[in-house]
C-alpha cells in the first residue's frame, strides 16, 4: 500500500483534491504535479480535503504557499477542509491558519466557493 495517495475531482466548478496518508518530502512531487495540472486547466477554485491525511511536513505546506498567490490573483482560492486535529495543528504551528481558509467540511467549503467566481 502506498504511503501517500492523491486523487481529484471537479465538484460544482471546484477542483477538490483528496489527500490520503503521509505527505512528506519524498511524496511531495506528486502533490505539486497534480496542483500544477489543475491550475494549468484553469481551475482556480481549489479545495484540499485532508480527511484522510494523517501527516504533513513543511514540504507539503510549502507547495500550497508557492501557488496560493497565483490562484488568488486569478480570483480563486485554495481552501482546506476536514483536517484531522494533528494536521491542523501542524498548519497552525507555522501560522497558516491565519492566512488560509480552513473549513470544517467539504460541503461548507463548496458553499463558500459558490459565493465567489474566478476572474477571466
Amino acid at each position: 500500500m502506498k504511503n501517500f495517495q492523491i486523487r481529484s475531482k471537479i465538484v460544482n466548478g471546484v477542483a477538490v483534491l483528496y489527500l490520503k496518508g503521509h505527505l512528506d518530502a519524498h511524496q511531495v512531487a506528486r502533490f505539486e504535479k497534480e496542483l500544477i495540472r489543475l491550475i494549468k486547466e484553469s481551475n482556480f477554485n481549489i479545495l484540499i480535503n485532508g480527511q484522510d491525511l494523517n501527516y504533513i511536513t513543511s514540504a507539503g505546506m510549502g507547495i500550497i504557499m508557492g501557488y496560493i498567490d497565483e490562484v488568488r490573483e486569478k480570483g480563486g482560492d485554495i481552501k482546506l477542509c476536514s483536517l484531522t486535529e494533528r494536521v491542523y495543528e501542524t498548519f497552525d504551528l507555522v501560522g497558516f491558519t491565519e492566512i488560509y481558509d480552513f473549513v470544517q467540511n467539504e460541503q461548507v467549503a463548496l458553499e463558500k466557493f459558490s459565493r465567489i467566481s474566478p476572474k477571466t
Partner: protein
Amino acid sequence: MKNSAVFLQKPDFSITIFSQTQLLKMVVELTRHITSLINFSAAEAQKISLAIDEAVTNVIKHSYDNATDQQITIEYFLAPGGIKIRIFYRGLPPDISDEEINVSKMIKKKKKGGLGVKLMKTIMDSVTYETMDGVNCCEMIKWQKTI
C-alpha cells in the same frame, strides 16, 4: 529552560542512514517510538518526530543537494523529562537565519521553502547548529511540559 547537562555523553540510540527521502518515514516512526519510551504524549511525540523529519529533510535537500549516497547519523539521548537529538552530516553547512519567518512575505515571493526551520524552532525548546572539522551537527532538545 532545564539544564542539558542531565543528558549522558553517550547516546541511548543511534542510527546512520543514507541521504534518501524514502527513509524519512522510518526516521519519523523511530523517533515517535523512542519519545514514547520517556512518556511524551502521543501529540508531543508526533511534533518531535516532525521536527526531526524537517531537520533531516533540510540536510538531504540543502547540505547534500539531494545526493542519495551520503550519510546522516542521528543520535538520541534520553533523560528524565527530556530528549536530546543530534544529527551529524557533512556537505554544506546550514544557512540558518535568526530572522523571524513571515509567511505572508513568503507567499508574496512565491517561496516554497523555509518553513521547516520555523517548525523546528517552534516545536523544540532548543535548536542549535555547529560545524567542526567539516562535520555539521544539528542539536535539538525538548523537555516535557510540567503540569
